[in-house]
């Protein structure tokens, strides 16, 4: 995923060969200054600009243009260079950035994979600006979004970098820029808003097209919701917090409705009883009138409670419509467009969507169920009978396995290459159909383990792995792990548990459930608890330690605030599973390339 930086934020650079794309609405000059540890540039040779566009390790464009591409090879830079400052300037003396749309800087690696982007919003009278800094940090390089503008222009900016003769250089640069602009003969794009207001809002935070505001009866319509409208260090974090905020708001709004309904029902009961108990009411129409009044009071209160709830729902629904299309793959539904053209991310995901949650009062409003990664608890997809009641046991098992496969595929696709691997135990080979999506694309660590011997072997190797990692962590010697130790997080998927498990294997699995998460080994069981009946209460702690997911809607999740029973629905790819195949194809291709 591309990290959208805000001013002042930094980000590690995984590669040293980079391209920096600058896009602006009007032609701008781009230069790169090579500075020492203090960011000072010592002489005119430390700056790559139109006159000397190529310095060791960096190349800048020769002329002013609206679109630029700088290439950098950080390894080529001299040892004395500790900071590369990328700066933009408007060629004309009287120009100001405030009159144009905010420029945007994107850092990609040599393959064109985007690493970070930054929008230089909020500029006004400035005519020169420091866009980004690349700097050395602990043997590596990082990039920082700066966005520091200079109203006095390039001269002041260069002077700030410690350049002697800043004004001459700035003048020369401007001159070249004007010539370059004329030579390039690329007239600036027709600006639709030549004199109109310019939109400075952060383009990355605008979210998708806003839903049309609902005609609301309130005098003050609620502000339109936007995606990422929550605190957090990154867009991903903000969206995570926003989704949890919506979850809490819906829980509380529903609590208000239910509390009012309980109260109204209890009051109605009491008043009806009183009307019945009153001897005067038995004669004449007084009793009937009292009952009517009681019912009217009940309906009036419920009407108000429902109206308040509807108001909240309309707000949350509008927010969900803005948020849902903005979600990154790890949080997105399978039918979201982000999965088309999915690319392997460079960063570990913070959370993953297990499915959707809803309440009976608001069945159309689905809250994404996001859980933090790495998973603290194992997952169990229940293939047993649920209230929704699939009668066909084989169908239930197949569906449960499909849920597990979709989840494994999602986890593979949202982790960077080499950071996550999946291995499968399918003792009887019964899951070959749904598992085919994983086995055919070769994204697993190996073919699914079969039979009691296969189960024993797979668990043996994972147990040893967890033991090693625990010892290394416990001894504070993580570097003592054997050479070539694969540090990827591991998901162990077990179909038809506990088939093929002997006592020894069960003990190992329980060990993995308890100790695995801290050592990077996570469980995903597909099981019908009834199949494990012969073990009696022995396995109860195991079931309790797992997060239970169901292949069909089932209300077994309680929220942490009020404790409503929420109906869980798994996240499955749309019929046909073409998205799943395509995404797994990307995972597989990236893996081959990585090797």
């Amino acid at each position, binding site marked *: 995923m591309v990290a959208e930086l805000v001013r002042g934020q930094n980000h590690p650079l995984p590669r040293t060969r980079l391209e920096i794309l600058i896009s602006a609405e009007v032609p701008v000059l781009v230069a790169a200054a090579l500075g020492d540890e203090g960011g000072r540039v010592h002489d005119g040779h430390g700056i790559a600009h139109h006159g000397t566009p190529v310095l060791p390790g960096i190349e800048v464009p020769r002329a002013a243009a609206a679109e630029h591409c700088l290439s950098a090879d950080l390894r080529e830079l001299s040892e004395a260079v500790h900071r590369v400052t990328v700066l933009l300037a408007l060629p004309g003396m009287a120009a100001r950035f405030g009159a144009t749309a905010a420029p945007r800087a994107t850092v990609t690696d040599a393959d064109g994979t985007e690493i970070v982007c930054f929008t230089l919003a909020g500029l006004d009278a400035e005519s020169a600006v420091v866009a980004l800094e690349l700097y050395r940090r602990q043997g590596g390089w990082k990039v920082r979004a700066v966005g520091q503008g200079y109203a006095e222009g390039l001269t002041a900016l260069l002077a700030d970098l410690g350049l002697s003769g800043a004004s001459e250089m700035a003048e020369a640069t401007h001159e070249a820029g004007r010539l370059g602009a004329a030579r390039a003969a690329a007239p600036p794009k027709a600006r639709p808003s030549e004199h109109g207001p310019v939109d400075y809002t952060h383009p990355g935070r605008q979210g998708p097209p806003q839903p049309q505001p609902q005609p609301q009866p309130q005098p003050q319509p609620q502000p339109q919701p936007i995606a990422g409208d929550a605190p957090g260090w990154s867009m991903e974090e903000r969206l995570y917090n926003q989704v949890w905020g919506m979850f*809490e*708001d819906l829980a*509380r*709004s529903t*609590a*208000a*409705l239910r*509390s*009012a309904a309980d*109260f*109204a029902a209890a*009051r109605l009961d009491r008043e009806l009883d009183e009307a019945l108990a009153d001897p005067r009411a038995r004669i004449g129409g007084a009793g009937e009138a009292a009952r009517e009044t009681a019912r009217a009071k009940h309906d009036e*209160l419920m009407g*108000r*409670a429902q109206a*308040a709830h509807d108001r909240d729902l309309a707000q949350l629904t509008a927010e969900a419509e803005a948020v849902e299309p903005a979600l990154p793959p790890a949080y997105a539904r399978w039918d979201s467009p982000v999965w088309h053209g999915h690319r392997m991310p460079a960063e570990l995901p913070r959370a993953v969507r297990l499915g959707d949650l809803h309440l009976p009062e608001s069945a159309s409003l689905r809250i994404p169920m996001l859980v933090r990664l790495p998973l603290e608890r194992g997952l169990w997809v229940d293939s047993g009978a649920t209230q929704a009641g699939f009668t066909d046991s084989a169908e239930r098992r197949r569906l449960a396995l499909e849920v597990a496969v979709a989840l494994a595929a999602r986890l593979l696709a949202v982790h960077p290459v080499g950071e996550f691997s999946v291995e499968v135990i399918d003792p009887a080979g019964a899951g070959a159909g749904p598992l085919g999506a994983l086995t055919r694309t070769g994204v697993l660590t190996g073919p699914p383990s079969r039979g009691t011997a296969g189960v024993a072997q797979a668990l043996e190797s994972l147990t040893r792995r967890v033991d090693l990692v625990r010892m290394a962590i416990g001894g504070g010697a993580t570097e003592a792990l054997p050479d070539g130790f694969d540090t990827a997080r591991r998901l162990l998927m077990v179909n038809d548990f506990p088939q093929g498990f002997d006592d020894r294997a069960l003990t190992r699995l329980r060990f993995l459930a308890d100790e695995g998460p801290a050592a990077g080994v996570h469980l995903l069981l597909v099981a019908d608890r009834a199949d494990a009946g012969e073990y009696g209460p022995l396995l109860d702690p195991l079931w309790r330690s797992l997060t239970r997911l169901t292949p069909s809607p089932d209300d077994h999740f309680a929220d942490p*605030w*009020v404790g409503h029973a929420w109906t869980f629905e798994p996240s499955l790819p749309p019929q046909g599973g073409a998205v799943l195949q395509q995404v797994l194809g990307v995972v597989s291709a990236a893996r081959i390339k990585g090797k």
Partner: protein
Amino acid sequence: MTVNMTKGQAISLEKKDGATLTAVRMGLGWQAAKRRGLFGSRTREIDLDASAVLFAEKQPVDVVFFRHLVSDDGSVRHTGDNLVGGVGQGGDDEAVLVDLQRVPPHVDQIVFTVNSFTGQTFQEVQNAFCRLVDETNGQELARYTLAGGGEYTAQIMAKVHRQGAGWTMTALGEPANGRTFQDLMPAILPHL
């Protein structure tokens, strides 16, 4: 302008321009116990607690206090337990925030109480007060002084109740005794 309230005085929470209040805060402040002598750490801290009880037709339906910081419906929030008090210069050490627009329709009264959890009477507490603030602009609407409150460990401070489409606040200022709001329930009921 601040109104110093006296017992039983009612204040309508309508603004001067006729708009009703949307969010109010009940703030509670007191001065921490002074450290005495060499063994200062042995000084007993004073822990006052602010609570809010939500009533629907005289039946308690929810309560917000230090063990339940947000009402289930989310309309009333406690900022968190302060165990020792503050500098005693008028700042809130504990606060209960009420979003009046979000209060469920059946809730018609919210009663604010103060208890001395550590058992000191209000005579022993310096500079204790309760105040009601318009949360939208920070303006203080009413202030009630607790200090010199006699040999009591609790006070039923005030209530906000629905009146017409808006809300009204009434100062109660009823002294009582008790460690938490539960002990005060019998004393609250006559004021509903």
